[in-house]
């Protein structure tokens, strides 16, 4: 028995050490010298773009050239149109236009949510679409949001990511901007499948389109201007503040996409 009680004491000592050690390790943080292990730990816990993670930019040289071209087009054309849109179109109208476009994308987002195994988000997409298309007058007013229907927008690039397809190399598309091989593939699918008959590429079911070609082009143009207006401040600040605008935009894009896939 005496021997057993010694064993029990040893067990107590073992647990004591296990639980007291963290207190000592916190004490070690009081040392001003910063431990490299902390950075490693931070990377392991949170990093989405570190060198050890799956992000690659093998076409950086070409990407930078395309980025410079896009940047030129943006600065001298698209940004100016977006500023004009912000300055001359009253905010309630801009908000309604955005609501209308977001509402159109809901059925497609619901489709992606369901195949990603996110039924709650899919149902939220559908509920939002039904409420906003009816009570919200064709999606002009976001009534669903006031009813606390919260959802995420899901596209096919995210769906591929959820199914474990790697992002592949980072690419900058002429005029379209940052992407990856996976997201670009998803984008082609996104553009070809369209539940609202706004199919711009007219792949499959163009005869059933609900609207004319001109309206489709107009809605796409409005989408681009609206998106650019939404990002006016962020892009302008990044352009002015970054030491490497290309690297900053690449990092934003990759982090944002990864966080959406991991959600």
């Amino acid at each position, binding site marked *: 028995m005496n021997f057993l009680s010694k064993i029990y004491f040893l067990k*107590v000592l073992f647990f004591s050490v296990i639980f007291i050690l963290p207190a000592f390790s916190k004490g070690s943080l009081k040392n001003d010298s910063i431990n490299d292990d902390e950075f490693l730990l931070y990377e392991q816990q949170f990093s989405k773009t570190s060198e050890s993670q799956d992000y690659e930019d093998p076409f950086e040289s070409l990407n930078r050239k395309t980025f410079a071209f896009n940047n030129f087009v943006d600065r001298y054309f698209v940004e100016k149109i977006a500023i004009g849109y912000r300055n001359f179109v009253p905010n309630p109208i801009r908000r309604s236009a955005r609501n209308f476009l977001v509402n159109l994308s809901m059925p497609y987002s619901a489709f992606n949510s369901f195949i990603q195994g996110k039924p709650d988000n899919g149902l939220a997409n559908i509920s939002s679409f039904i409420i906003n298309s009816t009570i919200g007058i064709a999606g002009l007013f976001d009534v669903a949001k006031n009813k606390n229907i919260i959802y995420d927008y899901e596209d096919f690039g995210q769906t591929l990511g959820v199914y474990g397809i790697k992002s592949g190399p980072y690419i900058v598309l002429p005029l379209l901007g940052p992407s990856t091989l996976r997201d670009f593939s998803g984008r082609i699918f996104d553009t070809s499948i369209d539940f609202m008959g706004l199919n711009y590429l007219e792949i499959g079911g163009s005869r059933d389109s609900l609207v004319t070609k001109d309206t489709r082009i107009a809605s796409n143009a409005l989408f681009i201007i609206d998106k650019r207006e939404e990002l006016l401040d962020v892009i302008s600040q990044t352009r002015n503040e970054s030491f490497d605008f290309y690297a900053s935009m*690449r*990092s934003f894009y990759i982090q944002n996409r990864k966080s959406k896939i991991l959600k």
Partner: protein
Amino acid sequence: MKTILFKSFFITILLFASSGFSQEKKVEDVKIFVENIGNSIIRIASDSKLSESQKKQKIILEVDSVVDASWISKFVLGKYYRDLSEQQKNKFSELYRQFMINTYGPKFKNYNGKKFEVTRVEKQAIFYTAHTQFFPRDSGNQILIDFRVKEQNGKLFVIDFIAEGISLLESQRSEFNSAINQSGIDQFISNLEKRVESLKK
């Protein structure tokens, strides 16, 4: 014999319980710490007696007191940090602190009239993530920001802000490393110095 066994059992239970309690307390401490930051920023930004320049200065001081710029400066420099001389390390660390508080601090001065809430705090390894939201009192979209916090010298410090899934820490590391790769560390530090000078004006 029974007494010894009972005492040992009691000590074990006590150690388990105190460990859990200490963790819960720390999470609560982080919540209060971040709540104080958010509310303090809103209070300064909403103070009608302060001029824009006074607001800016006060918010910069607030950010400076809660952010561990030294830790962040080492992280964002990544692999290049090890190659610096002690003098360069100290210079970069101070320059980065000035750059950080003068670039990001003033952005919070637009947070006037907002409400702030810490929705939950998670512990991940030795770090804590506080999920927060700033939302306007009337209408409009809420701004979701995650504060990443760590303990240093027995005090809590913010080491990262995350908005829309984008971490400030990671973005800066990517940007700085790329800039250094393009033009070299000396040129980069020189550019940073010029930037800090222009931000202070």
